């Protein structure tokens, strides 16, 4: 993995995914290890994403690295009209690794081709966000003890959510049974379903979430955004059908855990937070360990 860019979840194979998860486990046990003291990590956020940026910067700082970069394009040369090509070429002189978030799809792949140093994609438009997928895999394995043969439900906006798409693709390597719950307008795109079918895995589609809850090991919640609906009346009709309340969890399996990529708006009520099945804030913490593992592995300071 040394010097390898991570742009798309498929850039790393199953063995490499497992390797990162194992390494992340080491960092969970010992989060402060000054193994990157001589390194500079650049975080280039061409669009703001506070949570992802802080998670990466926390990971880098806990390993002793210095962090340089910008948190929005307004405070960088981008505002002066500099091309992505030139920004990346310049910054790759200053840093040992680049973490970038950019509103255009494909920007991270392009950056990885013009950069002298490896690039980690922290989100390129609606395309890929592979570190989110790895932290989701880590959270699933951590709570279930395995990634194999699980029943996983995705709830909400399955059409536009890139988190759901990448995680679905990654889970296709682990004999997952998928339970897809969404309004008719926001079903999982056929291009993603194609991956499930190729691996001959089971998937079931629902519009009602209540019947799914007793069947599954993981409930992956997502936010439904009003602007995704052409007809605002349709949104009004469905908006309350995809809200998880604590009382709905009575029949859930003991090992069920609830994940959410955050930010949450109203799709999980606050009374769920105190239920031991709620895992979304720990999931966010796991993101730091996974990013520590990625920085260390790509910079080649761990075997």
């Amino acid at each position, binding site marked *: 993995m040394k010097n390898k860019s991570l742009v798309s979840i498929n850039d790393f194979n199953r063995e490499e995914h497992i390797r990162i998860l194992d390494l992340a486990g080491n960092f969970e046990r010992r989060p402060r290890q000054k193994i990157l003291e001589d390194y500079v990590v650049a975080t280039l956020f061409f669009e703001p994403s506070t949570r992802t940026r802080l998670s990466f910067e926390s990971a880098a700082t806990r390993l002793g690295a210095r962090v340089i970069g910008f948190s929005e394009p307004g405070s960088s040369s981008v505002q002066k009209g500099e091309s992505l090509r030139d920004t990346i070429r310049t910054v790759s002189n200053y840093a040992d690794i680049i973490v970038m978030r950019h509103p255009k799809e494909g920007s991270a*792949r392009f950056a990885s081709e013009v950069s002298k140093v490896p690039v980690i994609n922290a989100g390129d438009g609606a395309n890929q966000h592979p570190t989110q997928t790895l932290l989701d895999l880590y959270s699933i394995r951590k709570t279930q003890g395995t990634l194999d043969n699980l029943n996983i439900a995705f709830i909400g906006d399955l059409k536009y959510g890139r988190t759901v798409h990448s995680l679905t693709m990654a889970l296709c390597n682990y004999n997952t049974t998928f339970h897809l719950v969404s309004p008719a307008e926001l079903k999982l795109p056929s291009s993603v379903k194609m991956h499930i079918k190729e691996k001959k895995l089971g998937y079931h589609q629902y519009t009602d979430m209540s019947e799914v809850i007793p069947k599954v090991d993981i409930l992956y919640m997502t936010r439904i955004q009003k602007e995704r609906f052409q007809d605002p009346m349709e949104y009004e009709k469905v908006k309350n059908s995809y809200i998880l309340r604590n009382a709905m969890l009575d029949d859930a399996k003991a090992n069920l855990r609830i994940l959410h990529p955050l930010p949450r708006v109203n799709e999980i009520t606050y009374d769920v937070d105190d239920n031991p099945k709620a895992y979304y804030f720990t999931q966010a913490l796991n993101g730091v360990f996974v990013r520590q593992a990625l920085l260390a592995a790509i910079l080649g300071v761990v075997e």
Partner: protein
Amino acid sequence: MEKTEQRKELKVSAIENGTVIDHIPSHSVYQVLRILNLTEYNDQLLIATNLESQKMGKKGIIKVSNKFFKSDEINKIALVAPSATLILIKNFGVSEKKTVEIPSKVEKIVRCFNPNCITNAEEITTSFDVVNKDDLKLRCHYCEKITAKDNMTFK
């Protein structure tokens, strides 16, 4: 029958050496010229469109003197002219006949249909993997979105 064939052929004069690209859909002739960089060609180039064709109704034909294309170069035209046939001419005679094949990778000539793709924001050479040859579908190397035949435009 033989006589009519001959008369048709004569609508565009013969070349001594080079390549004849026949059976091009009439509306694709100019695209083929662009894709093959023939708009700046400085040897003899004969172009005809809307010729009658038994096979296609109307067809176009391009005759390029003293030029023999490499297969990965000529295969690019398969995206706009899958029906094209190639005739290599040596000393006014047919030396070889070929058809074009859709390549497995397409570079430069196609624009990604995704308006939010980085290749439409900066000057970047586009690159696609052909994921379906029968029902033409190209996956962008950058944004990973599929550009299909219906929304394909050329640079």
